[in-house]
Structures are given as structure tokens and as C-alpha cells.
């Protein structure tokens, strides 16, 4: 306003308004975590997965070694008592999945990796998805996502006391170490059981909610072996073996749903529920065809365990949210590293059936 005098009161209002904008900008920076270097963010959690030499670019940041498959889930309809999810109504639904090893190294020899996993996507006729990522230990090593981050940090630390300090602070990890040292190995993915570990809520047709965990239990006969025997079979035995086994006939796992009883811990996957809980066999996963891992149909799938159909929801277990956040970060990283992924490279691991 040329010529119009500016009033003091207006200047004050302008200053107050400017202060509000500045405060909002500060709040935005705080919300983004820029002012909180100690906050456990997906970025930090995923960075902690990387071995000291750095991550394998272009690959999943964990469970990097694996092999893809296709098949079907044959639901027998018994799960419909607990969940109104269409995939638990009787029927046969397409399945896409990936057997994998819990390692950040896509070339790790099989016998060096204690934890095996199963990523799975079931597709309902209406297109809704049920994705899951399960592992073979009967319980998770730690109680909270923060403890998982602390475990990664301690295990990559050069300080010889770091692991001792971690175990002292997280006694539940001792139980896992006992399993890791004592549990038998198998020579085949087809002989492994894969467990949700996290508790989820099944919502039935009446709206009632049931806390559950589930496992895919193999129909194949389990032959326990030692890690030395697995080492002798070669570094990539599991992929070669499952490819041959599926080529000679489909492999099956039963979906066994376990119902919690009042008081069973749903917020801590390191705590096993007591024996004798009611279980429901809801159907059969049939693995019909091993697919290429490299550039195969699993490559672009983020097996985020919070991608759930109506009728299945997360519980008060803190892990699925943390996993969803971290898996998204891992997915963003690897999809941006296309040039580092061995596209169409000759598979060195017998990944082709």
C-alpha cells in the first residue's frame, strides 16, 4: 500500500502469524524425526540389518536368499468359523510364495543360516490379498522391535561385551539361542514348519474377534539332520532340492490355526502359548511349481504381513507394524537399485527348476 501507514497492531499480527508458520515448520521437522536422532525409524531399522560390509544392493534387506513358487491354497472351510475372510471359505485360491533364508546375504551357504522363512500371498476371487511372512523357529528371538534393533546392533558390534550386554537386557533371547543350538536341521524346505509367531485377530461373520497364531505344517516326513550334514550337501542345496522335489510332485503344508485362551500373551511373539490350545486345520497349501527367483513372479512382491483381507486384522503384537514399516523401506531401497540386481543373469544357484 504505497502511502498507507502501517499500523503497529498489524505488524504485531503479522509477527504472530509468521511465528505460527515457523512453529508449524518446527513441528513438521519434529514429526519427520529430524530433531530426534534416537528415534527408531524404518531407515535405521533396515540399515541395522546390513552386514558390516554393507547391504547387497538390489536385494531384500533380510531374507535375501530364496526361491519362488506358485501353487494353490485349498481351503476346507473350517477356518470360516473364526474369520469371515473369503480365503477361509471352502475353495481353491491362487498362491504365490517364496522359501527363503533369514540372512542379508543372497549368497550365504545354506548351513550358515539358522532361520528359514516362507513369504506367502494368497489371492481371493475378489482380488483381495493375504500376505504373510513366516519363519521356522517356534518363537521369535526377542519381545519388541526395539530389542530386535538392539540385537542387530549388538551382533554387528566390534565390542566383545555388546552381545553379553544385550542378552543380560533381553533374557528371552537365551531361549532362542537354546533352540538355535539344539533344534535339528532339515535338508529340505518341504520338511520345515513355518509359523506366524505374531498374533493376529480373526473376525468372524458375527463380528466376534478371536486372537490366533498360525503355522504351515509340512505333510512331508521330517528327517532331522545336523548342520554338518547340511554343509556337506552344498551351499545351495535347499533351492536345488526343492526344485527337484516339486518337479516330481506337489508339496503340501497344512494351515493350522491356534486359538488363544484368555490370558495368553498376544503382544509378545517370544512367548509360546501353553500346549493344549484348540487348533483348527483350515486347509492345505499346495506348492505346484518352483519359479525363477531372479526376475520371477516373487521379485516385485513385498510380503508385508499387514496386507490382510477383511476378516483378519493385526492384534496388539507390536511386530507386524514395525515389520510393515521396515519391509516398505527395504522394498523402496531394492526397487531403486534395479541396476544392481542380477537381472537375467545366469543363475549360479540352480534356481531354475
Amino acid at each position: 500500500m504505497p502511502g498507507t501507514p502501517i499500523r503497529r497492531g498489524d505488524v504485531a499480527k503479522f509477527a504472530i502469524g509468521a511465528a505460527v508458520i515457523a512453529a508449524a515448520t518446527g513441528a513438521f521437522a519434529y514429526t519427520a524425526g529430524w530433531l530426534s536422532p534416537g528415534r527408531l525409524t524404518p531407515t535405521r531399522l533396515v540399515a541395522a540389518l546390513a552386514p558390516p560390509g554393507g547391504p547387497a544392493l538390489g536385494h531384500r534387506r533380510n531374507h535375501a536368499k530364496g526361491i519362488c513358487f506358485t501353487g494353490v491354497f485349498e481351503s476346507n472351510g473350517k477356518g470360516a468359523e473364526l474369520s469371515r475372510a473369503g480365503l477361509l471359505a471352502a475353495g481353491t485360491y491362487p498362491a504365490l510364495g517364496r522359501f527363503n533364508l533369514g540372512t542379508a546375504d543372497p549368497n550365504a551357504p545354506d548351513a550358515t543360516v539358522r532361520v528359514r522363512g516362507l513369504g506367502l500371498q494368497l489371492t481371493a476371487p475378489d482380488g483381495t490379498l493375504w500376505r504373510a511372512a513366516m519363519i521356522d523357529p517356534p518363537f521369535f528371538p526377542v519381545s519388541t522391535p526395539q530389542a530386535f534393533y538392539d540385537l542387530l546392533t549388538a551382533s554387528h558390534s566390534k565390542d566383545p561385551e555388546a552381545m553379553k550386554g544385550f542378552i543380560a537386557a533381553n533374557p528371552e533371547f537365551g531361549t532362542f539361542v537354546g533352540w538355535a543350538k539344539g533344534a535339528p536341521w532339515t535338508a529340505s524346505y518341504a520338511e520345515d514348519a513355518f509359523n506366524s509367531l505374531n498374533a493376529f485377530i480373526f473376525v468372524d461373520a458375527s463380528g466376534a474377534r478371536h486372537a490366533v497364531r498360525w503355522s504351515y505344517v509340512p505333510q512331508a516326513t521330517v528327517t532331522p539332520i545336523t548342520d554338518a550334514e547340511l554343509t556337506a550337501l552344498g551351499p545351495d542345496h535347499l533351492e536345488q532340492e526343492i526344485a527337484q522335489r516339486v518337479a516330481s510332485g506337489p508339496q503340501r503344508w497344512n494351515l493350522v490355526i491356534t486359538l488363544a485362551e484368555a490370558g495368553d500373551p498376544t503382544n509378545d511373539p517370544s512367548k509360546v502359548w501353553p500346549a493344549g490350545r484348540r487348533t483348527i486345520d483350515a486347509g492345505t497349501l499346495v506348492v505346484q511349481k518352483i519359479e525363477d527367483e531372479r526376475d520371477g513372479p516373487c521379485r516385485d512382491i513385498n510380503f508385508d504381513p499387514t496386507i490382510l483381507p477383511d476378516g483378519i486384522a493385526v492384534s496388539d503384537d507390536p511386530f507386524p507394524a514395525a515389520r510393515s514399516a521396515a519391509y516398505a523401506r527395504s522394498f523402496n531401497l531394492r526397487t531403486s537399485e534395479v541396476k544392481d540386481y542380477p537381472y537375467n543373469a545366469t543363475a549360479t544357484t540352480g534356481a531354475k527348476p
Partner: protein
Amino acid sequence: MTASAMTRNAVTGRSTSVTPRFSALQRLLHWLMAACILAMLFIGVGMNSTVTPKYLPLVETHKTLGFVILLLALIRLAVRLVVGAPPLPADLPPLIKLGAHLSHYGLYALMIGMPLLGWGMLSAGGYPVVLLGHIQLPAILAPSDALHTVLWNAHFYLAFAFFGLIALHAGAALFHGFIRRDGVLESMASVSAPREATRPGK
């Protein structure tokens, strides 16, 4: 507050050069969307910096609110094209006028573009786009690593540009309202009865 602003304008003689206001519908859409978009930006940076259980409801809200903003923005654009906007003060320097026009093109582009980038990014990433936990939207792109990366980066960096542009927009509104006192702030900020019905005090 508005009435007193009017009074001051009357005293300074500004109210005689009456600038028409935005229509009531436009003002409603503006302030409703301002609240939605600010919430959206905070939810966006908040969800990307946490691994706590609130991550999941934040993401779900982000998707749902994003779709609502897209619908509101399209309605708003249509209303703007039909109803138009009050002219800027004639004595506004040409460079500021240009800045005002460009920033508004930018705001409209972001209001419509950001939800589409988010939707496209999820589609390219092979994610289902589910609102309110059970309304599934169709994918608008086929899965593609390269597209996912481009769209994700655009969505991420443009969010900060959006926040900056909103801060600039709010600063400019304050400048119009309290330094220039040219009626531009009142054309959108006023919630009182139309100007003709207001009796300027002397």
C-alpha cells in the same frame, strides 16, 4: 476479527475499492482442504519415521485422506473454472502478481498430483490400495520397479515442496492482510456475511 478488519479498511479508505470475495463454497473448500492437507503432510512424514503400532493407522489414514483430497481438489478446480476468483489488487507489482499466479498453479498441481502420485506409486509397487480397511481401489499402473522408484521419489520430495509452498502461501496471506491491507486476505479468510451487508464503521 473480520469486522474489525473491515472497519480498519474503511478508515484507511480501502473498503471503497471493494475486492469481491471468493464464494462461500470456495471458502469452505479452501479451509476444509487446508486442514486435510496439513494433516496429510504431518501424517506422511510421521508414518515414515516410526516403527511403532501407530504406523499402520497412519498409513491407512494417509491413503483414505489422500483419496478424499483428490476428490475435493477436483471439485474445487471445477468450481474455480466456473466461478473464477476475485482479481488481485490492481496496484500489486507485476512480479508479485506473477508469483501469486504461479504459486496457485503449483498448489492446484500438488493438490491433484500428490494423491495420484501416491496411488500410482502403490500400484507400481504391487500393493493393494485399500481405503478404510476394506474399500479396494483398482491399480492405475502395472507393477514396475522403475516406475515405483520414480513415483515414490516424486511423492516424497514434492511433499516437502508442498509444505514449503503452503508456508509461502500463508506468509503471503499475512503480508496482504497486515502489511499491504489490500483485501486479499479477507477475500478468503472472512467468514462473515457478504461485504455489501457489512456496515463499515467510521
